[in-house]
């Protein structure tokens, strides 16, 4: 029984890490239909910049916002690249984001370094015991932060004019322009918000996972799985997908064998795409005749 609880805690912690990364995918997708494969790199930039700023004796209250700003700046640069190739198909833009991720990874290899780094736990590193199973305060912080972000996103997309303008932009750029939406501004905002979310994720998960210049690769992939499983575009879907993935991985490692753990993410992804092509919470595709 204790084991079951411990597997769940482990799975939930990892799941929310995936979810945090997955959330970034939904934001850019919601405004541009682009899947931004450099999302993982923004996670890495957030963590690495926070680490290096704290090495440079910046207090956390300053280092963290600066790290998030650096990531948003990189998000803005990505937008610039995307807008330069405006007439390209979505597919070529997705490839562009892949290229950008390689660029960011290479640049941080030179700009930062190739070593592993970590940050001390923000609150305390004494684990909290619940019925014999333990969870770290940092993991709880990751969960709280992701939930805050997901509710903020939900509120933005569904209750504010801005969010609706974003959705409208994604749906039909020209129509959005005609009703007076500044498409360019909306897109800039989206790219910056999604990279900021990723960077926040990168900062809060660094004390748990440690970070280095290539941590974004696998986190980006798992976050992508999370977003797809949940139905890309829906922030709640990303969280659900992430947690489902995390728990499945943890249970497989615990009850079956750790050898099969990594296969789970991709098997689940295939099954979901096969049976629910839009993801578990994805919008039903309706076509007009």
């Amino acid at each position, binding site marked *: 029984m*204790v*084991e079951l609880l*411990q*597997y769940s*805690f*482990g*799975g939930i*912690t*990892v799941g929310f*890490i995936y979810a945090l990364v997955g959330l970034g995918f939904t934001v850019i997708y919601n405004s541009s239909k682009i899947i931004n494969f450099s999302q993982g790199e923004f996670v890495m930039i957030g963590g690495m910049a926070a680490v290096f700023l704290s090495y440079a004796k910046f207090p956390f209250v300053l280092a963290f916002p600066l790290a998030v700003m650096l990531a948003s700046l990189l998000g803005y640069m990505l937008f610039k690249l995307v807008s330069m190739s405006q007439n390209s198909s979505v597919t070529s833009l997705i490839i562009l984001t892949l290229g950008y991720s390689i660029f960011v990874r290479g640049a941080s*290899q030179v700009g930062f370094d*190739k*070593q*592993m*780094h*970590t940050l*001390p736990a923000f609150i305390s*590193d004494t*684990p909290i*015991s619940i019925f014999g199973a*333990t*969870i*770290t305060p940092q993991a709880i912080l990751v969960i709280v932060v992701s939930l805050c972000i997901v509710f903020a996103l939900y509120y933005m997309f569904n209750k504010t004019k801005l969010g609706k303008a974003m959705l409208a932009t994604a749906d039909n750029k020209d129509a959005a322009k005609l009703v007076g939406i500044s498409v360019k501004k909306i897109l800039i905002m989206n790219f910056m918000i999604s990279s900021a979310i990723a960077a926040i994720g990168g900062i809060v*998960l660094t004390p*748990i*996972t*440690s970070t*280095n210049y*290539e*941590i974004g*690769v*696998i*986190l980006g992939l798992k976050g992508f799985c999370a977003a797809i499983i949940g139905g890309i575009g829906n922030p709640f879907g990303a969280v659900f997908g992430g947690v489902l993935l995390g728990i499945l*991985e*943890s*249970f497989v*490692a*615990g009850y079956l064998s*750790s*050898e099969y*753990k*990594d296969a789970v993410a991709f098997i689940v992804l295939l099954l979901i795409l096969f049976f629910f092509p839009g993801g578990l919470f994805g919008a039903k595709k309706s076509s007009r005749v």
Partner: protein
Amino acid sequence: MTKTSKVLLGLLAMGFSLTAYAKENIKIGALVAATGPASFLGDPELKTLEMYIEKINAAGGVMGKNIELIAYDTGANPKKATTFVKRLISQDKVVAILGGSASGETMAILPFIKKAKIPLVSMAGSIKIVKPAKKFVFKTPATDRMACEKIFEYLKKKSKTNVALISGNGGFGKSMRAQCKEVAPAFGVKIVADETYGPKDTDMTPQLTKIKSMTNVDAVVNPGFGQGPAIVTKNFKQLGMKQTLVQSHGVASKKFIELTGNASEGVIVASPPVVVAALLKDSNPIKQIALDYINDYETKYNAPVSTFGGYAYDALNLVVNAMKEANSTDPKAIRDAIESTTSYVGLNGIYKMSKNDHLGLDIDSSIKMLVIKNKDWQLAK
């Protein structure tokens, strides 16, 4: 500037690192994973090679000639390593090759070495590189098998013979896991659990929970390097596990203590002597050269030393000493002289090569059991 040196500078701009070129240099090739997934190996290795070749040349070189390092970055990719080894052999015409950084790339270049009859001193861990001994192939790091033996010897002494393995499934972890399982019976050690994790995993609590739920585990051994062992150590602490946790030489650097913080208190580490030079007895001949190396490296690069730079240091010195010994830069003469090395005191131990032993390290001088106390190393009793 000769024309050649201009061309070489051009190559430098393309990302190859080269030292100054002059006529009549002794060319030594190096294949290091300076970037990519094994860059934490290749980066300090290359820095060490560059630093010491500069020093050797400043002190008059070898037999009155300067050494020229021709280093290529393999990115730990065996395909790239084979391309570069061909270039080193046929184009650059080097007299000896140092590298690769990782076992996979080293194994990939062995056929070319055999054909070209040029001595190779690898900086990679796997025992397969030198067992069975191949005429032109040597290596400097103690093998994972030796680390397993040392760890089990220690655990046997402590009567903790029921061991759970939790290994990274990258190259290093895989190889060491296999070696540990092979040597365990010889020490009366029983492997009661055998878990693995991916090198990029972020949570090992499921595997550790499984081990925790078993009642007969005395010690947990974690073959692996990079972030994995750091996360295992943190998770181990989080779960409040009371068994002895033993880490391999893959984590033996200050970085590991930094990454794990309080969680590494009391963790046992099997380590090459270089990182704990200050703790060695004054009578140990390794102590002084290790302290000098640490001082040189840390002053020049302003970064803490790892064990990995030490592999390059010993590889370079084995070759340089052999050239001096043979008074020749003929590859075959160098090879013969390396094989007849009997008492080179290096950073990884004292090398005593022979026809069948192309590593030449003994377990006692090359691996130390350490315990982490107050965020620093101590020799484990």
